[in-house]
């Protein structure tokens, strides 16, 4: 029950925004957890990294595109935008930056797995992914509850 009454033409961009956000959270949850519990197991480290790459990154792009689309539909201008919208934008962009850094570090880590290294880089990737996850859960709370 995401919103009470809204014009019908807001539904598709909202659906896209939420699907993207769910994919993003799924990737961060799966990737961050797998990397955090892997204890050096290469199979689980790869699963964690590729969850971030194949789920969280596309999810962020879809979520962000949907956000811009619905922002435009709702007629916000940047002046006196509500607080929940500001929280959403700040977390979305900061989390996106964390995700990109996590993917770069993790990419080097995964490349080194075959030579028996890379686990420290992938631990850093896990920490960044889990921080981003917490941020996005705060954003989901703000999008749902719409605090003043």
């Amino acid at each position, binding site marked *: 029950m*995401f919103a009470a009454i809204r014009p019908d033409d807001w539904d598709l961009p909202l*659906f896209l925004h939420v699907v993207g956000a*769910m*994919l993003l959270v*799924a990737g961060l949850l799966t990737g961050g*957890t797998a990397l955090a519990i892997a204890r050096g197991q290469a*199979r689980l480290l790869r*699963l964690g990294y590729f969850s971030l790459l194949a789920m969280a990154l596309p999810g962020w792009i879809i979520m962000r595109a949907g956000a811009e689309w619905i922002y435009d539909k709702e007629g916000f201008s940047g002046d006196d935008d509500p607080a929940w919208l500001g929280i959403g934008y700040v977390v979305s962009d900061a989390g996106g930056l964390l995700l990109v850094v996590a993917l770069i570090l993790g990419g080097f880590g995964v490349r080194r797995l075959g030579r028996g290294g890379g686990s420290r880089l992938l631990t850093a990737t896990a920490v960044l992914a889990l921080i981003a996850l917490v941020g996005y859960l705060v954003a989901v*709370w703000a999008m749902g509850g*719409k605090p003043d």
Partner: protein
Amino acid sequence: MSLDDWLIALHLLAAFALVGAILGFWAMLVAGWRTDRPGDVQAIFRLGPYLNAAVAIGAVGTLALGIWLAVSLDAYEVWDGWVIAAIVLWIVVAAAGERAGAEYARAERRAEELLRAGRDGPSEEVRSLVRTRRGLALQAIATVAAVLILADMIWKPGA
């Protein structure tokens, strides 16, 4: 924030936990698809309890808070068509997801048995258990039903 605002926010967080875990299980299935070594299967399935916890929180939270919202908000009733559709789809997600989990638990158990017997070589049996078509079909049904719930929540047909 009013009580209803909190209910909506927590309902949404529960939905993210549920869908996040369902998609996480897909990542496990894809990772396991080309695996035939019991040790690798066991490593992948170590993620399972965390995703199961998210499913439990998400499933209970979406249903309980969703019904509470339908009762609390003046605009909606529990017997509205789109609310009933969401509850039916939730039952489909829960039933299909639980049965998919039971299918994949067989692969996990067999991998553990082989490891206890000191056998971590490639196993055709483990490979076929991980590639269960029944499990894959049930997981697909749970996923499609979850996406339909999301569409139902946004478009609210008949509301």
